[in-house]
């Protein structure tokens, strides 16, 4: 199946990625070929098969809703590209 340049632009927008004209063209061709590979699955009968989202059949463990590793503001901010007064700093969001 051919994945058009418009689809690539749409999906890139959803994924918060931007591509120039040359990249859009290239990704469109590559993704079309990969989608062709994926389409092989359509031949596999899966009627009534329960989807498997995980390799191990186990219940999700529960824990008490308590803070176990709090008070780490400075550690967490140490990797921030920009921080001020104990907060992450980003460009203005609301005009």
């Amino acid at each position, binding site marked *: 199946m051919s994945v058009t340049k418009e689809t690539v632009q749409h999906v890139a927008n959803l994924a918060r990625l931007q591509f120039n004209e040359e990249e859009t063209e290239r990704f469109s061709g590559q*993704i079309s070929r990969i989608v062709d590979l994926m389409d092989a*699955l359509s031949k596999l009968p899966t009627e009534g098969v329960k*989807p*498997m989202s995980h*390799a191990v059949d186990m219940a999700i463990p529960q824990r008490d809703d308590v803070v176990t590793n709090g008070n780490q503001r400075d550690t967490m901010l140490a990797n921030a590209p920009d921080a001020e007064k104990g907060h992450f700093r980003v460009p203005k969001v609301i005009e």
Partner: protein
Amino acid sequence: MNELTLREAADKLATKEISSVELTQACLDQIAKHNPTINAFVTVDAEKALAAAQAADARIAAGNGAPLTGIPIAHKDIFNTTDMRTTCSSRMLENFIPPFDATITTHLRQAGAVILGKTNLDEFAMGSSTETSYFGASRNPWDTQRTPGGSSGGSSAAIAANMAICATGTDTGGSIRQPASLTNLTGLKPTYGRCSRYGIIAFASSLDQAGPMTRTAEDAAMLLNVMVSYDPKDSTSIQSPAPDFTQALTGDVKGLKIGIAAEYFGDGLNDEVRAAIETAQQQYQAMGAELVPISLPNSGYAIPTYYIISPAECSSNLARYDGVKFGYRCEEPKDIRDLYFRSRSEGFGDEVKRRIMLGTYVLSSGYYDAYYRKAQQARRLIADEFKAAFEKVDLILTPTSPTTAFKFGEKDDPVQMYLSDIYTINVNLAGLPGISVPCGFDSKGLPIGMQLIGRPLDEETLLRSADAYQRQTDWHKRRVHLG
């Protein structure tokens, strides 16, 4: 000294024939000499390594040594380390210093292993050759014009080039086993959930699994002893007893039923690899094991299934890289939208973008049922097929990789690269343990590996079978001498 196996090094350290400082220095000297060519390491910290080696020597002198105390190890640069940057070989995390250690890193530190540094990988573990690394490809010590495999290619190259005694890797679709095969090492992907994933930077959460990369099966057992644990910090961690895996190494495979599936010996398999695997099968027969023909007809659907599920999970996991809290941020963003788009577009390389795009595509409205749901159903069929096979056999023997190490740029089409994982990804989809073991060399002098696949939580049979084979053969003893 740096060519020793983990077992040999541990014995010599215990009897004080060598010191950890000497052993660590030998590895550091080898790194200094050959890393500029091999590019196995992204980060090396000689000072910290030597300090850890001194502490290990003191611990051994005080009679408190454990089997891994003083052993120089390399960590794939996907394991969080608080004292060393963790880059995932991406520009996105080029300067990232994790605020916490991975559970496995902690276990190995507590055991007294000496961390030499962090090894190169395909960016965010996405690739089969390390060519997608932001820091450039690692080279295969057996032939530096060729790849050491991927994504744990830095770890495999580091051991094969005698820069480390052992290493950690992660395996999402074959990323421990394939590089082990291409560099003449033993690489074990444990059962999903056996080793904690806490502190491993996520690629595809339902498939990623940490494991040991070593020179022998015995070494893998020793390293696995320290890596396996139940971890309450990882909600996918399995609560199961962790045996002493070295106790399983009896050398005996008599009566063992080994499944041979015709589907793993089809057209794409290189003739020399096929011949080596067939010789290994005969070797097992001679050792008293029984070869049992089996059929795994859904194996052919593994590649499309994997290349839907893993990008879907990757697109979700990599949504966190938005340039706000950590990681790369673009210069002078004009607004928040510009910050997101440019930070991600400049911070990620092409393969990562391709997989994020594929994942976003298959999860998007209109395609979810046709691709993602369908792939999850195929995954169930593949896993059920293995379950049925393991009612008849104890393990399954296959090639690890369809070819020996390929040249850089040889697979520049993504589809060609994806097909190189054809024999390994089933194992991840089904959550099974698998090991790659050296079993020959091709006419160019390049290593060939075979894969053994086991029942869930049955790493002992895999290690026992691999070790028994290594007692009878010497492929794993061949080393590269870089000069």
